[in-house]
């Protein structure tokens, strides 16, 4: 006989532990437990059988892995939390007794925990940390824009804004921004750092306040962790590109609202040259140059107030060129070795990611007119190599003034004034510059080419701004680019013609069909229409038509008709007929599990399809309306002309 197993010593009962049991086991308060869970990244689990995990009870509780909790039990942070509890008691006692000196010494020796080991534990490699940085960035950037309050001390806000500026500086320096999306929630940025895609969300510049239904303590704990994580990640990123971390902050410029310009990126000198390394004396023109002289010269150079951005720009260009060279080298070596290896096929080329032009805006100089969002545009333009200036009322640190002749684009987010306001810019300058709306910059970046400015000119109705992140598979894809008015009118006429044609053909088909059987050419055409992507079928259809002695134009029109008819058939076919009907019948032979899965998949597919159809029908309706209006307008114009 098998050994009798005591209940609750094996399986789910052992593997899971409820939250209250965990708190009891760790002998800490619930708040401390929550803090630990946040810091250590421990989250509840869903046992497969709740009843088995909870000693037969089905009460709603959250479960944790018992091993997770066991690891927590000897966590240094937990020890520190306990120490802090004792410290708080001691301090309150000292304060209550009025023992100020002992209170002070207690306060000096207050237990403070560090999260380094937790970061290392949760992210054993740097790439792991980088991959998980999205939420940290979003939260830290959100907090950098919040007003300080007793619950959110200004030191916290400052540190958050520092991290967000450092991150932006790094992205601009390495030009790793890839995509930008202006949404109703804020601006989504996507960057690619060390092969990791990082997306973060920045709210628009409005004062926000923490709502009452949000638990600030939870957010602050997360912020604690995220600040540490970001600090280590940024340290690594900065030192890897040879910059000093943290970048020094010029307080006076910060007070003048220079934004990210208040920080200056410094190249870290050669590090760790070794103890027995002796620098060879450098001699210039026979004089031995000493370290003192060098420092002096640097000071002199720094005294010449160059805009920091220019230094940046020059320093930015360097890695860019080197990478390009490296790329060429690689290509050359590949081509030399490609004699034996297979030649690159079309497929492999299309599979490769298209190279991203990070100096897309390099040839241009931008000036932000009053009212355009400076932090957004400055970050985006500088990330793509452009130069930006802004009026002094939008903060100091602008490298160019408004009357600079190099300015090619003025970004303006204002309607065209009805009364011509006296502009400070001279007329010839106005003519050489292009006045565009902010969306132009973002759309150009997402499209990876400079778009025509005409559509985005000041006061124009902007074309829709689409998500650069794409949609889900099989979702509705909106038509890119608005159709021209003439195009619409022509297209509409074409549609009308086609409708007539169709009606005719339907009638003729009804007349003909029973009478004469389909010719080979017709059949071939039908086959081609059924698979529109297959070029071979199309070709064969053409050949058949030739054999039947048909004209090419006739063939083309009939082919178009066939395509249309096929589409219509496809749409009109009811789901209960044909193949799908058979599938319905076969469904009853499936096991329950499989059938449920099948039905779930079908349901989601159907849902997606209906959504797509809805959007498509709406688009068609909108288009029709627009066409009608345009036609009316055109007709009205013609009438006026003839009159």
């Amino acid at each position: 006989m098998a050994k009798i197993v005591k209940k609750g010593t094996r399986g789910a009962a052992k593997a899971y532990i409820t939250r209250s049991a965990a708190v009891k086991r760790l002998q800490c308060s619930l708040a401390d437990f929550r803090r630990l869970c946040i810091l250590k990244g421990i989250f509840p689990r869903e046992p497969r059988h709740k009843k088995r995990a909870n000693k037969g009870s089905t009460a709603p509780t959250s479960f944790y892995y018992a091993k997770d909790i066991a690891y927590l039990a000897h966590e240094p942070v937990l020890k520190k939390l306990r120490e802090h509890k004792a410290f708080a008691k001691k301090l309150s006692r000292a304060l209550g007794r009025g023992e100020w000196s002992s209170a002070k010494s207690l306060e000096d020796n207050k237990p403070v925990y560090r999260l380094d080991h937790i970061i290392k534990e949760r992210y054993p490699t740097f790439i792991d940390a980088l991959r998980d940085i999205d939420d940290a960035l979003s939260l830290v950037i959100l907090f950098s824009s919040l007003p300080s309050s007793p619950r959110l001390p200004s030191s916290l806000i400052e540190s958050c804004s520092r991290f967000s500026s450092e991150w932006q500086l790094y992205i601009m320096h390495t030009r790793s921004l890839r995509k930008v999306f202006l949404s109703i929630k804020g601006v989504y940025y996507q960057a690619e750092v060390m092969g990791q895609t990082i997306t973060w969300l920045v709210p628009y510049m409005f004062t926000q306040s923490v709502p009452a239904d949000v638990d600030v303590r939870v957010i602050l704990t997360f912020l604690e962790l995220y600040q540490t994580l970001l600090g280590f990640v940024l340290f690594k990123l900065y030192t890897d590109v040879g910059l000093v971390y943290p970048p020094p902050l010029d307080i006076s410029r910060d007070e003048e609202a220079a934004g990210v310009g208040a920080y200056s990126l410094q190249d870290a000198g050669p590090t760790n040259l070794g103890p027995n390394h002796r620098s060879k004396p450098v001699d210039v023109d026979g004089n031995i140059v000493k370290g003192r002289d060098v420092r002096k010269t640097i000071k002199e150079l720094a005294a010449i107030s160059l805009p920091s951005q220019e230094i940046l720009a020059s320093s930015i260009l360097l890695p860019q060129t080197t990478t390009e060279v490296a790329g060429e080298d690689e290509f050359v070596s590949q081509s030399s070795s490609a004699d034996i290896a297979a030649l690159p096929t079309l497929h492999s080329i299309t599979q490769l990611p298209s190279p991203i032009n990070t100096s897309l805006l390099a040839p241009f100089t931008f000036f932000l007119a009053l009212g355009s969002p400076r932090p957004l545009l400055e970050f985006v333009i500088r990330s793509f190599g452009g130069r930006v200036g802004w009026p002094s009322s939008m903060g100091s640190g602008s490298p160019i003034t408004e009357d600079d002749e190099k300015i090619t684009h003025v970004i303006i987010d204002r309607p065209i004034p009805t009364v011509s306001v006296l502009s400070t810019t001279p007329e010839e300058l106005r003519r050489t510059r292009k006045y565009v709306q902010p969306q132009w910059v973002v759309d150009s970046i997402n499209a990876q080419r400079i778009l025509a400015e005409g559509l985005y000119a000041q006061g124009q109705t902007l074309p829709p701004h689409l998500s650069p992140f794409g949609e889900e598979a099989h979702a509705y894809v909106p038509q890119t680019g608005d159709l021209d008015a003439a195009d619409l009118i022509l297209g509409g006429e074409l549609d009308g013609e086609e409708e007539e044609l169709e009606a005719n053909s339907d009638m003729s088909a009804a007349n003909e069909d029973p009478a004469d059987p389909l010719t080979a050419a017709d059949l071939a055409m039908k086959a081609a229409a059924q698979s529109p992507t297959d070029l071979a079928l199309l070709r064969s259809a053409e050949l058949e038509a030739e054999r039947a002695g048909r004209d090419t134009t006739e063939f083309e029109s009939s082919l178009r008709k066939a395509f249309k008819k096929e589409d219509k058939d496809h749409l009109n076919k009811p789901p209960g007929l044909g193949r799908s009907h058979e599938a319905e019948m076969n469904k009853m032979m499936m096991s329950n599990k499989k059938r449920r899965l099948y039905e779930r998949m079908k349901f989601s597919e159907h849902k997606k399809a209906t959504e797509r159809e809805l959007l498509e029908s709406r688009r068609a309706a909108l288009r029709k309306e627009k066409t009608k209006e345009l036609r009316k307008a055109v007709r009205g114009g013609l009438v006026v002309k003839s009159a």
Partner: protein
Amino acid sequence: MGVPAVPPKAEASGQKRKRKNETNGAPELPSFGPLGMEMHSDEENAAVGSGDEESESDHESFPELDTRDDSEDDTSDEGNDPEEHDGSSSSSYLLEDSEDEVDVSQDDVVNIGPRATTILSKITGRPKRVYPEIVPDYDSDSSTEDDPNRVGNIPMHWYDDLPHLGYDIDGKKVLRPAKGDELDKFLSTVDDPSSWTSGFDKLTQSDQQLTSEELDIIRRLQAAEVPDASYNPYEDTVEWFTGKGKEEVMPISARPEPKRRWQPSKWEKQKVMKIVRAIRQGRILPRKPTSTQPQFYQLWATPASDHPPPLPAPKPPLPTNAESYNPPAEYLPTPEEKTEWEATDKEDRERNFLPQKYSALRLVPGYDQFIQERFSRLLDLYLAPRIQRKKLNIDPDSLLPQLPSPQSLKPFPIFELLRQEHGSKARCIAISPDGVWVASGDESGLVKVWEIAVGREAARYQFESRVGSIAWCPRDDVNFFVVGIDQAIHVLVPPYIPLAMLITTLALLTPVNPPQPPSSSSPSLKWVASSTAPVSRSPSPLLTIHMPPSSSLVKQITFHRRGDYLASISESDSVWIHQISKRHSQAPFKKIKGTVQRVQFHPTKPNFFVATQRYVRMYDLAAQKLLRTLQSGIRWISSLDIHPSGDHLIVGGYDRKLCWFDLELSEKPYKVLSRYHSKAIRSLHFHPTYPLFASSSDDGTIQIFHARVFSDYLTDPLIVPLKVLRGHKIVEGLGVLEIRWLRDRPWLVSSGADGVVSLWCN
């Protein structure tokens, strides 16, 4: 009375006192010692004696500590000690005590009781209060009053059964006080205003009025106050031992103060010196900087532990076009969608925002839910359970079983060829073995016999009540069918049969000398042959089996493959097996668990299947034993059929399930097809020759299946759904009630609740 030794601090006072006594010249030694120890209360100030007063005042003015003279101490101690043990001193003390009492009573303002007179004590010479003698007359005592309780404080239930309560002084029984009945009690509660403040006293066995004090206690208890009215919970503190003038003056012990009290500690010095030395040597830094470690450093420079990293949290989905500040116009919600979105709960919304379109970036307002959404993301990160799910990236159609196309499995019925109308619900049908005739019965008692090929009605039989079932004899040499009506089974002969066949049929049914039923046959069941002449088109039955009167409608009749035996079940759960040739009927089961739904003979073996509500039981008729019980899992079995090979069985249920049993395999179904009919399954039938079976349901449809059974045991039976036949209407929730296949053609006859009997052809 033990007096403690005078502590060293007191000796000075003693000394002083002594000096004072000397100055007075009247030393009162006997009272000295005790007074010094006892006087602690204020009252003593009132007890004034001339000599004592002086000593009192001495006591009160605390002497200064003087520890210089030790020798004097000793002498005073010696002087004090003998007096303390003096007997006279104690007596004087007692006397004084009594005097104290007198004083107390003098102080009191209110006098209760007999008046006291103050006289001068002869012994002490002090005034003393004397109370008058108590004279034992009637006024002085209340003992002669009639005490209602005669028995003392005993458990009164000892007297429960007795009419009296104790005895009076004469030894006579004292009767219980009269107790009124319930009415009196009630009246007293109404009349007597004080009755609600009275309670039953067990000792006197009568109602006693509660005194005002008792009522007050009750009131206080109800109000959660202290029950004692005189108790003051907020009394002023009496400072017995502390406060002004109460300082401890006498040392507790005579031991000299130890040196350590005023000398600095050696160990403390050693400890401090240890720290000082450590500081000097630099082992302890007094105000060292809080941390030498930089805040951020190359964390990942050191090699990582070989623990696998925890799985990263899933990233939120990326925003789509709908979230754009300037989306294409088709994304904008209609007003209805907007109101619907606003009406749904926050958790149930598909998107947490409404698409909006702004013509310029400057018009975009701040997003008010920003912090909430970030917060909910954080909550997700640490509160939401995560499950790693394998995402199935497959085409759902690949899950469908690969079955041969129905086109390749022809022939099977696909259309309705002809229909025969009945006035009411066509309940049952039977097809002649030669495939020429169909007999169909309906609820009004009409049985029609019609030709399959053309639908021509050949005969009709009208019975009094509804037709329960029809079955056609499967024999080839005779031709007759049986109809179950009420509690009878009628044997009928169809018209237009060849003469030779008619003769053999008549010979079988109405022989010249009918066989005598064997003695084992049930006497309650009667076989009655019709007396009328055997005419071929006779509307009356040739033979009738009258079931016992207790049974009800015959709901199923099924023939054995040889055609001699037929089994019938009634709605009252009685199963009968009749033998036509011997006119013999028997009930094979004494008692059956559950209600019998269907019975069926095995096509080749002497086995018999009985389907009760939940199980199908297989009996061996020859050995008369239960072979196996098939567990279908169906809640309520409605139909049953056996494959012509005899190795497979299908069972249909009212809960829309169909179970296929492989009798060789297991007692559990090989395959369960559930809910392919949207309503209850009514009838099932295997085609006798083609690999087909059909099921009909209350949803008005008939499903045709291809069912191929392989003779080797390795290949599973192949079931392919072929066709859904629609055409019957649903009447009162009933659809197609019975289906039958033709024997040698893939044709199907179905009878529906709409009164139509249809023929379905390929």
